[in-house]
């Protein structure tokens, strides 16, 4: 019986060596586990439920707002404006620059941001920067009990008003 060793040829054409095959399988498994853990950690970091106040809220009956008034709802960060002619609109009080809450200045008749000095008129149009845009206007309606309802998830054009 011949005891000659056959030379081990790793580079047989079209064939992987056992070592290379196992290396690829092992590295592949570790790679998949690594990608999986990154993906899982990423999805873990983004909360599925956020306990934030609802975007739709009631702002009381229309009689609470005298004509020509600008009222800030601090909780909801919205100005409820009743124009002199009697129609309503709801203006975002969140500055379009970096998200500070703006204030109504009745003596000057403007909306001003305390953080970086942006100015808007009572229609929400930008007067002075650094704010890049005017204040958006939110959808407003009247429910069957005569209460004003504002939905902050819907922005409307700057000509949309609510006639009460």
């Amino acid at each position, binding site marked *: 019986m011949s005891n000659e060793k056959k030379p081990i040829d790793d580079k047989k054409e079209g064939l992987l060596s056992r070592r290379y095959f196992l290396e690829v399988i092992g590295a592949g498994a570790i790679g998949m586990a690594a990608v999986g853990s990154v993906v899982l950690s990423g999805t873990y970091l983004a*909360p599925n439920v*956020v*306990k*934030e106040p609802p975007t739709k809220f009631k702002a009381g009956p229309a009689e609470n707002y005298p004509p020509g008034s600008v009222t800030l709802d601090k909780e909801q960060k919205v100005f409820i404006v009743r124009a002199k002619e009697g129609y309503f609109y709801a203006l975002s009080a969140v500055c379009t620059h*970096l*998200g500070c809450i703006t204030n109504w200045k009745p003596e000057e008749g403007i909306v001003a941001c305390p*953080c970086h000095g942006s100015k808007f008129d009572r229609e929400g149009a930008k007067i002075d920067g650094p704010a890049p845009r005017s204040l958006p206007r939110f959808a407003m309606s009247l429910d069957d009990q005569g209460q004003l309802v504002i939905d902050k998830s819907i922005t409307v054009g700057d000509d949309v008003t609510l006639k009460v």
Partner: protein
Amino acid sequence: MKKYLEALYRTQVWRSMFRHGLPESNRTRAETVFYNFFLHVHPTKVRKRSVKFTYTWGLGGLSAGLFIVLTLTGALLMLYYRPSVQQAYWDMKDLQFVVSSGQFLRNMHRWAAHAMVAIVFLHMLRVFYTGSYRPPKEFNWVIGVILLVVTILLSYTGYLLPWDQLAFWGISVGTNMVRAVPFGLGDKVSFLLLGGNMVGENALVRFYVLHCFIIPVAAMVLMGIHFWRVRKDGGV
């Protein structure tokens, strides 16, 4: 006296801690630095030029020292501070007016934090002006720049924790800046940082965890590498 000290040096307890003789020869002086955990951040031999105080102004060491002060005072503040919307502000006020030495510890943490940002920045300037970023030390400069960013992040995440008006609007403005990142990434990053769309309970807890654990651990790892490379390059 000398007799008692010599007896102490011969005890097994002493010999087990310090396995070399007193630093009386060059060899034992080198061993004293080399075999001591706390001293071995220094090289056994230092060039005379680089120990000159006006070369480094001790700014790196001061930054590291402030980091230790901040870790110790921060750990003590954690005993009274609870990161919740209901309690955070009042816990901070309790630390100021009710807890013994609370005001002192809080102010120490606060001033050390301000000082660390300033001194890390000055350290960077010093390294720039002495040209210490040049090869072969380019990579340590890069780590140093990351450490500057980490220092600023520590300062910024700590800013929210008192939960007062300044904190709230500071973080509102900062995370709104993040929203300016293009390709829709800004909104995502801001959402992840705040754990929501506004600065609230989730944001407070996230900033607390970042401030007290994640960023300090990152800083310690980076500092380890930074000091090790300084030592290998023959710095103090």
